[in-house]
């Protein structure tokens, strides 16, 4: 009898891929808002996968940052720009065809590599628990320098965005 968590993995994985597909290639709607909403759903179901991997902190952060802030920003911009014209454009058939071939090739190569790969990890060992405390300790001890660099990056991004969004670019 399969475990509940195993079933949940297949459910969440299926949902993630389905929503991801509907996000990039929705056959019914080419509206950017629809894409954005499906991306939100993709992110939420991915948070489900994170929970199954016992990365609770990251699951929460994933929803909080991606679904709660980044995608709202996307939605905000889409609505602000009023992209009615975009929905009426025809797709370039050649580009879509060749693109699909390339993507299918890539997916094939990746999956083939996965199947042929020898598992390096011993099957019996206990998987690691992603507790928030442990994560914080590593973040502020081993990764302190990258963390500080990241904060400077955020500051730079903030200044850049304010500069870009000014009416007159001088």
């Amino acid at each position: 009898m399969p475990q509940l968590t195993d079933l949940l993995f297949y459910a969440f994985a299926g949902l993630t891929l389905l929503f991801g597909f509907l996000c990039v290639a929705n056959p019914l709607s080419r509206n950017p808002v629809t894409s954005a909403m499906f991306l939100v759903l993709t992110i939420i179901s991915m948070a489900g996968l994170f929970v199954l991997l016992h990365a609770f902190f990251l699951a929460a952060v994933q929803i909080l940052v991606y679904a709660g802030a980044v995608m709202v920003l996307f939605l905000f911009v889409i609505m602000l720009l009023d992209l009615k014209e975009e929905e009426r454009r025809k797709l370039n058939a050649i580009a879509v065809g060749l693109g699909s071939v390339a993507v299918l090739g890539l997916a094939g190569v990746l999956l083939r590599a996965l199947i042929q790969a020898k598992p390096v990890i011993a099957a019996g060992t206990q998987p690691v628990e992603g507790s928030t405390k442990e994560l914080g300790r590593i973040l502020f001890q081993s990764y302190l320098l990258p963390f500080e660099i990241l904060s400077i990056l955020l500051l730079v991004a903030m200044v850049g965005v304010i500069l870009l969004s000014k009416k007159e670019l001088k």
Partner: protein
Amino acid sequence: MQPGLPHYLAVSALLFSLGLLGVIARRSLLVMYMSLELMLNAANLALVAFSRFNQNLNGQVMVFFIITVAAAEVAVGLALIVALFRKRQTSHVEDLASLKL
């Protein structure tokens, strides 16, 4: 079958391919940008899976960094798109082919 590392990696690979498909096939800057986010998320999933099955938390820390960088990147990218839209009244990549504003 009990899902292990290969299962998660397969999902991640397929998600990455979907993101790539979006970048290639869709012509709206915003949707392409969203597809890029999808690819980043695929990488996140792979890293979390590695971290879980590899008995150390470094992968999760990396994901933490990626999420932060992605947030900053989205803010700057969207500001650029809005600025571009103000100048050209379009966010369609085929209309944005010239090098000068």
